[in-house]
C-alpha cells in the first residue's frame, strides 16, 4: 500500500487469515446490523457493537474509562494486543470503533482494508462459531482530547476560521434534508452546515470493493478539490460522528494530517443547539459572511 502516511494501520484479508490464531492479535467486527456477525464472521473474530457496547446507556456519551476496560478484558484484549477491526459498509463502523479505541489510548489498532466485502470477494470462509477468548487485563488511559472535539471547541474553531469538513451527503450539507438519504431523521430541528465547512461525502474515500482509495486519489479529493491543508487543525463531523470517524481515519492515517478531531456531537447536536451559527446552501459561508449564517433563511442557495 504505497504512499499512505501510516501504511501499517491497514492490513489485508490475507494478513488477517494468517494471523487469526496469533494470541497477540484480536480480530474485532463492528457492523451496522449485528445479525451480520451472527450469520458469519471471520474465524476467531469477536464482536464489538457501536451502540450496545460503546455508548453510555444513560448519559449521551461514550462508555467511561472503567467500562472500556471491562469491555476489552471481556473480549480478550490486553494493552499490548494488536486489535484488527473490520465490518460492513466500507468499514464505517470499524473506523468508529477504531476511533473509540484511540480515544482510550490503545496503541496498536489496524483496519482490515475492504472489510466484510473484501473478505467475501476474496472467497475466504465465514464462521458461526461462538468466540470466547480468555479474559485479559486492561488499563485504559484517560480520554485523548486531541482526537475529539466538543461543541464549545467547535464554536471557537468556527470563529477562528479554521478548516472544517462536513462528510454528510450534499443534500444534508445544503440543508435540504436533515438525515442521510434512505435513513431516518434522528431529530435535528435545523438543516444546513457549520459555517466554513467544506463538503466531501465520506464514502468518496472508498472504492467499490470497500477498500480505501489510493493516496493519489485521496489527495485529489481532500487536498485539491476542497483544498484542505495537512498542517492546519481540522474538525470533521457528520450526523452523529460515525461517518466522520472514517474520514478522521483517512485524514490522519492515510494522508498524514497533523491534527484532526472528530466532532461526535455532529449535526444531531449542532442542528438542535440554541444560538450557534448555521450556513445553508452549497457554499461554505463563514461567521464573517452574514449572508450565509443562521438568521438568513435563504442562505446562499
Amino acid at each position, binding site marked *: 500500500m504505497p504512499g499512505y502516511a501510516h501504511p501499517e494501520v491497514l492490513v489485508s484479508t490475507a494478513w488477517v487469515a494468517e494471523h487469526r490464531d496469533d494470541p497477540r492479535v484480536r480480530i474485532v467486527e463492528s457492523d451496522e*446490523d449485528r445479525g451480520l456477525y*451472527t450469520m458469519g464472521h471471520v474465524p476467531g473474530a469477536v464482536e464489538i457493537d457501536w451502540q450496545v457496547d460503546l455508548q453510555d446507556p444513560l448519559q449521551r456519551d461514550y462508555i467511561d474509562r472503567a467500562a472500556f476496560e471491562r469491555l476489552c478484558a471481556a473480549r480478550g484484549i490486553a494493552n499490548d494486543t494488536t486489535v484488527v477491526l473490520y465490518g460492513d459498509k466500507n468499514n464505517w463502523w470499524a473506523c468508529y470503533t477504531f476511533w473509540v479505541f484511540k480515544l482510550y489510548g490503545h496503541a496498536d489498532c489496524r483496519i482490515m482494508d475492504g472489510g466484510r466485502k473484501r473478505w467475501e470477494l476474496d472467497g475466504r470462509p465465514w464462521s458461526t462459531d461462538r468466540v470466547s477468548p480468555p479474559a485479559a487485563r486492561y488499563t485504559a488511559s484517560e480520554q485523548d482530547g486531541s482526537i475529539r472535539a466538543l461543541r464549545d471547541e467547535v464554536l471557537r474553531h468556527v470563529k477562528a476560521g479554521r478548516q472544517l469538513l462536513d462528510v454528510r451527503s450534499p443534500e444534508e450539507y445544503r440543508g435540504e434534508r436533515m438525515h442521510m438519504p434512505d435513513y431516518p431523521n434522528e431529530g435535528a430541528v435545523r438543516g444546513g452546515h457549520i459555517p466554513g465547512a467544506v463538503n466531501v461525502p465520506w464514502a468518496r474515500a472508498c472504492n467499490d470493493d470497500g477498500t480505501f482509495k489510493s493516496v493519489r486519489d485521496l489527495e485529489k479529493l481532500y487536498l485539491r478539490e476542497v483544498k484542505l491543508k495537512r498542517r492546519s487543525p481540522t474538525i470533521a463531523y457528520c450526523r452523529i460522528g460515525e461517518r466522520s470517524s472514517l474520514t478522521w481515519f483517512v485524514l490522519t492515517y492515510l494522508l498524514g494530517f497533523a491534527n484532526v478531531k472528530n466532532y461526535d456531537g455532529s449535526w444531531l447536536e449542532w442542528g438542535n443547539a440554541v444560538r450557534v451559527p448555521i450556513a445553508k446552501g452549497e457554499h461554505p459561508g463563514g461567521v464573517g459572511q452574514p449572508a450565509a449564517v443562521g438568521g438568513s433563511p435563504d442562505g446562499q442557495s
Partner: protein
Amino acid sequence: MADEAAVTGGTAGDSVAERLARIADEFADLDSRDKLELLVEYAASLPPLPAAYAARRGDSRVHECQTPVFLWPEVIDGRAGLVAEVAPEAPTVKGFVAVLAEAVAGRPAAEAAALDDTFIDRTGLTDVLGILRSRGLRAILARVRKSLLAAGAG
C-alpha cells in the same frame, strides 16, 4: 369486525396477541447471542418477494428505517397478511419483519391492534440492538398495525 370462525384450515387458531406473547417469551428467555441467532433464523424464513410486488415498491417503503424496507400489509377476505422485502445487509430488521408476518398471517385484521410497542420491550431486543435500531423496529411495527387496522375497517 371480521368473524373469528372464518379463519380455518391450516392456519394456527391462536390470536395475534397469543402468537406475539409466545414469540416474546421465546426471545425473552434467551441470552443476547441467542436472541440474535433467533432473529437471523426468522430472517431466513421470510419468503422472497413475489414478482407481482416488485413492480410497485413506490409507497411501500418505511422511511424511518435505516435500511431499505418495503412492506405490504394486506387484508384479503378479512384475513391479514404481511408481504415484505428487506435488504440482506439488514438481517435483524428482516428477522423482525418475519416475526410480524408470522404473528398476523391469516388472522382477522382487527387483531392487529395487539401489535403495540410493548411487544419489542417484552422480547428484550432493545438491550441487544440499542435505542436507535429499536426505533426503526417501532416504526415498522406501527406501520403494520395502522395499515392492517385501516384495511380491515375499509
